């Protein structure tokens, strides 16, 4: 049984912080199919469209009929644990620092044998297990065998925590506490066991609904933060940078216009200043500190969450400038992800459909509620998912975009 995590003791400032090492990240191109699915929280294997054979490890041809028509399809992961080992020795620095390390060989019900990391609550060989695909600290998809039934404190398994970004006992910065989304994120993080939450507040002299309720929460510390103000951003980063484990950048500016409906560029510039340059300012301020603490014990720096929009994938003309600013932020987030990778800090991009707020007033439902969006973000942290598409609209747009991006462009043009 997993022993529940305990609140980490205050760090001795004299001790050297362990430098991050990554697990082996080399993969063949075809194997990145596993990573692509794991980034979305899905376990997919190659399946032959001609003979139906499921195969693993990934390859360029069907091992039965030699067909090249291979498709990644979602798997249940159900299987039998055939054998267990516990490594007491490893040739890799990342694992050497984490020994002993448990592994299992699993026969999936789809007649495929896999090697997987092993959750500590999996029973002995012969037990039923459920294999999941998760991202490891190098950002690559790997398999982990989980007990087939929920166990107590399951998320606290030390090996599992090497793959997830669980907020439990971690310190989080939420960049904007004024919005319903921001406040829902804070409440969700508290339910997930976050240790301390700095909540950003621009224009602190103004009263926003819900802010006072946040102020009364023992885990919450309200901090002045305006992402359009370079100096203010660096000041805050200098103050809390060495302690932040998770950044959730939910600050955004949203004005519903395209090109023709409004003269001048002021509104669009303001959107860019928060949605794009705000991310850049924050990343320059906090990035180095997070990178330095990627392997800082039980509660290391683990994740950076960007609240983007499904409009970042393909421009939604009625909200054209907002879409453009989110597309810019998406591109920058990919850069941030590459720069965070050597430290094992995961960059999670959240692509909600229209949020049920005042700026989407004229957008038809379904819309994502603040609470649902907050839950999706916390869940992504707990499960280590990298790209999150909360809400039915986002899921549908994603499916259309993956199927044919040009078709989606025409459809969105109305």
């Amino acid at each position, binding site marked *: 049984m997993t022993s529940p995590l305990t609140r980490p003791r205050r760090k001795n400032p004299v001790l050297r912080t362990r430098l991050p090492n990554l*697990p*082996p*990240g*080399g*993969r*063949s191109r075809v*194997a990145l199919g596993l990573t692509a699915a794991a980034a979305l929280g899905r376990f997919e294997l190659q399946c032959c469209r001609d003979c139906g054979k499921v195969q*693993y*490890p*990934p390859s360029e041809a069907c*091992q039965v009929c030699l067909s090249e028509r291979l498709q990644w399809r979602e798997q249940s992961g159900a299987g039998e644990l*055939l*054998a*267990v*080992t*516990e*490594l*007491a*020795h*490893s*040739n*890799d620095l*990342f*694992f050497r620092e984490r020994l002993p*390390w448990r*592994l299992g*060989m699993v*026969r999936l019900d789809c*007649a495929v*044998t*896999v*090697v*997987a*990391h092993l959750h500590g609550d999996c029973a002995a*060989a*012969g037990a039923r297990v459920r294999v999941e695909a998760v991202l*490891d600290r*190098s950002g*690559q998809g*790997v398999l982990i065998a989980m007990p087939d039934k929920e166990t107590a404190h399951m998320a606290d398994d030390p090996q599992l925590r090497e793959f997830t970004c669980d907020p439990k006992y971690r310190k989080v910065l939420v960049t904007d506490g004024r919005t319903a989304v921001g406040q829902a994120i804070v409440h969700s993080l508290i339910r997930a066991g976050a240790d301390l939450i700095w909540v950003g507040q621009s224009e602190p002299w103004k009263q926003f609904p819900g802010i006072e309720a946040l102020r009364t929460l023992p885990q919450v510390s309200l901090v002045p933060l305006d992402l359009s103000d370079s100096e203010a951003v660096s000041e805050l980063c200098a103050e809390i940078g060495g302690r932040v484990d998770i950044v959730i950048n939910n600050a955004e500016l949203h004005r519903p216009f395209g090109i023709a409906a409004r003269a001048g560029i002021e509104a669009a510039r303001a959107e860019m200043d928060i949605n794009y340059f705000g991310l850049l300012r924050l990343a320059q301020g906090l990035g180095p500190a997070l990178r330095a603490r990627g392997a800082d014990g039980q509660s290391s720096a683990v994740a950076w969450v960007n609240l983007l929009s499904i409009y970042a994938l393909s421009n939604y003309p009625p909200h054209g400038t907002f879409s453009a600013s989110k597309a810019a932020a998406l591109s920058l987030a990919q850069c941030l992800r590459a720069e965070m990778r050597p430290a094992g800090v995961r960059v999670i991009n959240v692509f909600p459909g229209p949020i049920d707020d005042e700026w989407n007033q004229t957008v038809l439902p379904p819309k994502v509620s603040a609470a649902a969006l907050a839950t999706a973000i916390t869940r992504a942290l707990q499960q280590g998912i990298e790209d999150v598409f909360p809400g039915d609209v986002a899921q549908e747009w994603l499916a259309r975009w993956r199927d044919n991006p040009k078709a989606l462009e025409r459809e969105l043009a109305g």
Partner: protein
Amino acid sequence: MDKRSARRGYEGVVAVVPITVPYVRYSIRTAHWFLARVLAELIRASGIDKASIDGLCVSSFTLAPDTAIGLTQHLGVSPRWLDHIPLGGASGVVALRRAARAVQCGDAQVVACISGDTNHVDSFRLTLSNFSSFARDAVYPYGAGGPNASFAFLTANYMREFGLERADFGKLCVAQRDNALRYPQALFKRPLGLQEYLDARPIAEPLRLFDCVMPCAGAEGFLVMSADRARSLGLAAVQVLGTIERHNSYPDDPVQVRGGWAMDRDDLYAQAGRGPQDVDLMQAYDDYPVISLMQIEDLGFCQKGEGARFIREHSFTWDGNFPFNTSGGQLSVGQAGAAGGYLGMIEALRQLTDAAADRQVAKAQTALVSGFGMINFDRGLASGAALLGRA
């Protein structure tokens, strides 16, 4: 065993001059150096000149970026028959059978079969991380334990399925260490007791220290030529009675409990006209003891699953009732990369030519050499075996 093999035999072809370039734990030399040393020794020991070697067969893990062809220029040879066999532990058997056919059919007259690797301080890790694309994609990211992790699974499964205990594997390891004490090239010079084996530090449970080979540097080699040529050179020769090889056998087995030997052993014995009861000594590929046992079972010395009883009823030292890995095997000599796939072949050639000094198996007439190699993903893919007879 009266089933006739449809394949031709290897009449008139022999293997001669088993050579070992002394093993060292680490070396600053390259694989090229070790392969040059073994070829030089083959020439010196056989008394033929370099130009007479018209066939060359090479196995090595650390020769990169070169292969056999590049090596011809390093060694200054102009063979008319060249092979590069990247089959790890099956290399020795496969080299012998291919070279034997080349000589038998006249494509070459004298084939030098050589195998060797260096071992720098970091070369084992580098070999592991790039061993195969499946290993890189689906094994190495899982703890980077290398073959230890993969064989831990096979061993754990074997123990669970067939009721083996660690002490059974320990008996094989202890006997091999006894054998190694009589083999001067062995890197392990101290006796090993069963308790010491059982209490050794864990590597990847159920594997502990003495279940795992120690990587080292070294080289092995032998010559294949006609019996007539060997006789005229005055070389002690060994007959090739029968050989098999098989790759990626039983791909539908969920976890490996058998290898290609189980598919082909009848053919092997039929080609040789001999059976398991005729085998005086066995040299198996022993990167881990579970693989030794798999070969004993699959080559017909007992039924699958009866290995525990077989081990308990036999003794495996050079003077025991089942002489096994009589130079100590890789577990007690060291694993010099691909040369590990030649170790048993070289020892069998010595035993059948009375060159095994104070570990000589009395009245050895027939030897069985078995090879196993290349754990690509979850199982070893290559298997092979050869029956050799005193000429």
